[in-house]
C-alpha cells in the first residue's frame, strides 16, 4: 500500500488502517481537489483540512481554489452517518466521494451490536447508490480492543469493495526489515 492511485472508474475502494491510512486519504482528497469537485464525508472527526492545505500547496500555486472544490460534512453518531449518506445519495453526485473513518461511531459502546449491523447494512446500501454516479473511497479503522467482535463490520465493508487495501501493522509484517539507523 505505497500509494492510492486516483480512481479511474466508479468503483468502491476501501482502505483499512490507522493514521497511515488517514494520511493517505487526506493526500488523496487534496489530489482529487486539484482535478475538480470532491465530496468529503467525515464520519470520525478526522478530515483535518490543514494537512490537505499543506499537500495542495506543494502541488499548486492556488491552494484556496482547490480547497473550495472540496465539499465536506461531518457525522458524529451512526444515525447521523446513515442520514448523511442518505442525504448525499439523494443529490445527483457526479464527483468522487471520500468517506473518512466510516465505522468510528459504530464502535460506540452505546450502540448495540445488532443495531450497528442494521445501520451499517443501510449505510452500505446508500454507498452502492453513490457508486452509480461516482467512485467512492472509504477508510475504516479496525475496532478497538474492547469490541473485537465488531471486526465483522470491517469485513462487511471490505466485502462490498471492488478494491481493498489493508494497512499492515508493523509487528504483523513478520519479515525483518532494515530500518534507518539514524532517523
Amino acid at each position, binding site marked *: 500500500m505505497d500509494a492510492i492511485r486516483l480512481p479511474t472508474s466508479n468503483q468502491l475502494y476501501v482502505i483499512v488502517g490507522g493514521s497511515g491510512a488517514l494520511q493517505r486519504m487526506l493526500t488523496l482528497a487534496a489530489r482529487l481537489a486539484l482535478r475538480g469537485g470532491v465530496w468529503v464525508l467525515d464520519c470520525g472527526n478526522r478530515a483535518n*483540512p490543514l494537512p*490537505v*492545505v499543506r499537500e495542495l500547496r506543494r502541488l499548486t500555486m492556488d491552494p484556496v481554489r482547490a*480547497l473550495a472544490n472540496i*465539499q465536506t460534512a*461531518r457525522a458524529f453518531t451512526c444515525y447521523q452517518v446513515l442520514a448523511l449518506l442518505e*442525504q448525499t445519495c439523494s443529490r445527483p453526485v457526479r464527483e468522487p466521494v471520500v468517506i473518512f473513518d466510516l465505522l468510528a461511531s459504530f464502535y460506540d459502546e452505546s450502540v448495540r451490536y445488532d*443495531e450497528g449491523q442494521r445501520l451499517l447494512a443501510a449505510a452500505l446500501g446508500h454507498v452502492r447508490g453513490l457508486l452509480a454516479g461516482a467512485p467512492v473511497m472509504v477508510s475504516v479503522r479496525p475496532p478497538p480492543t474492547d469490541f473485537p467482535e465488531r471486526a465483522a463490520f470491517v469485513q462487511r465493508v471490505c466485502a462490498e469493495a471492488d478494491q481493498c487495501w489493508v494497512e499492515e501493522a508493523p509487528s504483523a509484517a513478520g519479515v525483518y526489515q532494515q530500518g534507518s539507523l539514524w532517523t
Partner: protein
Amino acid sequence: MTYEGWLLDLYADGPRGVALWLVTDDDRRVRLCQRFPVRFFAAGPGPRLRALWRWLRGREPAPGLAREERRDLFVAERLPVLAVETADPAGLQPLFAEVEREFPDLTYYDADVPLTVRHAAAFGSFPLARCRAEADEQGNVRAFEVLDSPWALDPALPPLRILEINLPEGDPQRTPPTRLELRFRAWKQSYPWVAGSAPAAWLRAALQKLDPDIVLTDYGDTWLLPELLRRGQAPLSRDPAYPLRTVEEHTYFSYGQIVYRGQQVHLYGRVHIDRQNAMLWRDYGLEGILENARVTALPIQTAARISPGTGISCMQMQTALRDGVLVPWHKQQVEQPRSMLSLIQSDFGGLVYQPRIGLHFEVGAIDFVSLYPAVMVRCNISPETQARPLSQPPAPNPGLIPRTLAPLLHKRVALKTWAAKLPAWDPRRKSIRARTAAQKWLLVVCFGYLGYKNARFGRIEAHEAVTAGGREALLRAKEAAEDLGFAVLHLYVDGLWVQQAGCRTAEDFEPLLAEVTRRTGLPIALDGVYRWVAFLPSRGNRRVPVGNRYFGVFTDGSLKVRGLDARRRDTPPWVTAVQMGLLECLAQAVSPEDLKPAAAEALGRLRRELARLREGKVPLEDLLCAQKLSRPLEKYTHPSPAARAAGQLQAAGKRTAAGQRVRFLYVRGEERVWAWDLPQTFDRRCLDVGMYRKLALRAAADVFQPFGIEPEELYALMHNAARVPLFPLPV
C-alpha cells in the same frame, strides 16, 4: 373538593394516570390522582406504519392509535405520523421498547420525554408550583390549574418539613459509623449506631411523628437508606403503594471529565436528597436544587441528581411540546455540506488572549452577563433558524432555543439586579445567590449542548454561530475600550481586564459599560475594580502567558483566584491554606507602597508554616490529597498516585470506581502513597515531609513571582531561614 396549595411530587400511578402530592394551605399533604394519557409518535414509509398499526392493534391493553400530521423542527412540511397513546404513563416506555425492537427502521418522536415535562407542557406545572385542584371523594382530579410561573422572582413557597439524617463521622463505607443523628427544625437527637433493627425503628418513629416532605441525608443513596431498610421496616415513601425506586450507580464522560454517580434512592410523595450524591450541593444547596426543579420542571429528586445538560435538554423538550414540535428520539440531523474553506473559518472556539504577565494596579474587570446564552437569544441562534448578526435588531420570531433560554436569562439578570439593591444583611441575598448559581450552570451548558452530538435540538452550525457571536462581541468590547483610552490587559472568552490612569472606582468604568452595550446589544457588568491583579505565566515557560491563571484583590479587599493550586480539589487542604494565607497577607496592601511590608509578612508566614510541617504539627487530615481515578484501575499501565492508592484499597477489599476520588498521603518508600481509608493505623514517621514542602513551595512560588521573587530565590530563602530577604519589588 377544591384544594389549593403547592405541588410537591408527581409520578406515574398505573392506568389511573398520575399521582399528584399537594402541600395544602392548611398544611395537609394530599394525594390526588389525575388522568394523564401519554403518547409517542412513529414516522416512516406508509406500509411500515400500517404494519405497526396492525401489530399494536392486537395488543392487550390496546393503545390508542391515530394518524396525525406533526411538525419536525428540521423538516419543512408537516410529517404524517402514527400517534400511540397509553393511559398508564409508566406503560409507555416498555411498549415503546418493544415497538422499537420490532420496527427498528421507523423514526420515533416523543418517546423518552420525562413525565413531569409532559405534564408541565400540558398544564404549566413544576415542582412547588402554586396550584388549585378540584377532585371527587376518591381524590380523582376533575380540574387542575397552576397559579404561578417558574419565572416569578420571589414566589411564595410552602413551609416544607425537612428531616435530616446525618452520620457525623463521614463516609460509612470508609469508617464504620458509631452514631446516627436526626434533626428536624430545632429538634435534634443522637442515637448510637447499634446492630439489629433499632436504628430502623428510631427512623420509623421519627417519620411517623414528623411526616417530613424532604429527607436530607449524607450517603442516603449509596449506603444509609438501603442499610436502614435492610435492618427493618420504615415508611420512607409517603405513598404506601410505592415503596421506593433505586437507580444503579454509573460512570460517564462529561466535558472531557470522568464523572461517577453513586446509586440513587428515590421516594414517592416525599423527596430524598443525598447531599453527598447531589449535583453541585456545595455550590448551591437546597435552594439551588429547588430552583433547578422549578425551571426544568423535573421532579426535585431528579433535579438534585442530574447534570445541567439533562436539565437544559428537558427545558427544550418542554418548549417543543408546547409548540407542537416533535421531540426526536435519536438525533439524525446532520451538518449541511460546505466547502472545506468555510470549515477552517468557523471551526474554532472562544477568544482566549495571552494576558500581559505580571502585576498591574487599578484594573477594571468587566464581563458579559452569560455571554453565550445572551448571544443565542440576541442573534436568534437555534437549529432551525438563520442566525442574525449583532448589528441587526433582534428577530421578531425567535426559534426554539432562544425561546427556551430567554425567560431563564431574564430571570437571572433580574435576580442579580435585585440582589445588588438589597442591603448586605438581607437573608434573601444568600437565597438569590444559590438560585442564580443553579441558573448559571444551566446557562453555561446550554451552549455546549447545542454542539453535543446527541442533543435532539443541537446543530453544529448553530454552535459555531454562537462562538462567532461571542468573538465578535468581545472584539467590539476591546475596540470600545481602546477607543475610550483604556489599555486592554487581557481578554478571556466573555470578559476583559482594562486599565486607564485615574480610573479606580465603579463609576469610572460606567461610560465603557454603556458603550459596549451600545455596540453589542448585550448586557455587560463590572465584575469589580482590582487594587491589583497579577497574571501568571505558564509553569513550564516563564515567558509564555496563560489565559486563566491569575489572582488579585478588589477594592473591597476580597480576593479572586483562578488557576492556582488553592482552586484545585486535589490539592491537600494544608497547601491550599498556605497559599490562601499568603494571598491574604498580600491582600492587605492597599497601595503599591504597602506591598513590600505585606510581602515580607507573607514570607514570614510561609517560613512558619514550613516549620510547622517539619515539626509534625500539621494534622494528617490536612495533608490528604483527594485525586480522581480517571479510568478503571486495571486500565492503568503507569499507575498515578491515585491509582496506586486505589490498588492498596482494592487489596484491602475496598473497591473504587472510575470517577471516584481516592484520598491518600504521600509517604516515603517504594509505594510513595498511603491510601487514607486503609484499615491499618498510619505511622506518621513514614510521611514524605519533603514532598509536602515541595508542594507548598511550588504553590508559594506562584504567589511571590509577580512580586519579583523568582522561584529559585524563594527556595533559597526558605532553605536558609536566617537570611534576611532582599528582594526587588516593582514599586
